[in-house]
């Protein structure tokens, strides 16, 4: 009897492996069985096969929170190391916050030349969703994937607070869950978060709708035009100074104002949900 069971188990295992492969193929190929994927449950299955690489450089701090945000949103976090030669079949990439290489030379300047960045730059140009948070944003500007630069806060102090943002572009793959002009709140913590770009670049950013988030209520670090986050022309690469990954779970997010002190603000998870929704749409999952 036990032999029969183990045979059945083997068969089930093979079936599961096949199913997994089919899911990946489907997401990759953009084809899907529409009848099978109508329900929300099936969406979860597809979401779980979306691989989101979270890159760790020496000195990266927020990779675990970023990976947790990916898991809570329903996708699969894949740990990536700065020295890796491949992106391990990632479908999207998050460059997490921290102080890569101790912020030596300039923030993000050394990380930009890490081996994995070559692959990320290629992937970004190929349209893969890339999210750079805080130090990740700094790395993306140093890598010239995003325009402008981040300089020391005008008041010279490190900031750590809950920050209101205004959504200025809800059409990117990382922000489609938001409404235009919506006010959201996520944590902000940085020493060098003052966004700078020359006049011509700012004009281009405005014209091409690349300013995705502006600080709302106050300008915490002297950023030009209250800019908190920008995307590339295609919209697949987004960098922002505030930290969505720290506001993803009720009870452990930011104060949402409804019941003070309960920290139920989870606007951060909507970044990841946006990307998942976008990818499912692209894969033809309804």
């Amino acid at each position, binding site marked *: 009897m036990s032999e029969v069971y183990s045979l059945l188990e083997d068969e089930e295992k093979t079936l599961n492996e096949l199913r997994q492969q089919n899911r990946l193929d489907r997401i990759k190929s953009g084809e899907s069985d529409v009848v099978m994927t109508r329900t929300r449950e099936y969406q979860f299955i597809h979401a779980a096969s979306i691989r989101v690489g979270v890159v760790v450089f020496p000195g990266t701090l927020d990779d675990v929170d970023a990976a947790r945000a990916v898991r809570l949103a329903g996708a699969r976090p894949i740990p990536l190391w700065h020295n890796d030669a491949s992106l391990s079949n990632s479908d999207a990439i998050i460059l997490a916050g921290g102080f890569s290489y101790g912020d030596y030379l*300039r923030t993000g300047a050394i990380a930009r030349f890490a081996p994995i960045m070559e692959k990320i730059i290629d992937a970004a140009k190929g349209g893969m969703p890339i999210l750079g948070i805080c130090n990740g944003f700094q790395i993306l500007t140093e890598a010239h994937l995003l325009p*402008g*630069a981040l*300089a*020391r806060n*005008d008041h010279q102090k490190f900031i750590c607070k809950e920050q209101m943002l205004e959504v200025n572009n809800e059409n990117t793959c990382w922000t489609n869950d938001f409404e235009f002009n919506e006010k959201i709140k996520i944590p902000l913590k940085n020493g060098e978060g003052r966004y700078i*770009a*020359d006049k011509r670049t700012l004009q281009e950013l405005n014209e091409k709708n690349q300013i995705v988030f502006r600080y709302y209520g106050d300008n915490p670090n002297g950023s030009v035009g209250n800019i908190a986050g920008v995307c590339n022309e295609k919209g697949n690469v987004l960098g922002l100074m505030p930290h969505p990954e720290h506001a993803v779970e009720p009870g452990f997010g930011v104060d949402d104002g409804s019941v003070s002190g309960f920290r139920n603000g989870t606007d951060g998870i909507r970044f990841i949900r946006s990307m998942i929704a976008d990818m499912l749409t692209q894969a033809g999952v309804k």
Partner: protein
Amino acid sequence: MGVIVVEVMPKEEILDPQGKAIVGALNRMGIKSVVGARQGKRFELTVDGKVTLSHLEDAKKAAELLLSNPVIEQVIRVSESGREGAGGMSENEGVTA
């Protein structure tokens, strides 16, 4: 061993909060004649043997690609140590944003 000096300064139009803090400290310690300060970076790159033109080319490349960020900084000197303004590529020569 030759040494090439690369100097990088924040662009004129960019606010330099470190410089501002330095002026504040100088004034507080009694040096009131200083009304402005800007803080930059100096790199000393050591090469094998005497400094050649090709070494200087490499240093210029390093200055543009890694040692400075053209959005906020300006390379103001790439030249052999001790030979300021002579023989090397000093000032803004050949350095573009």
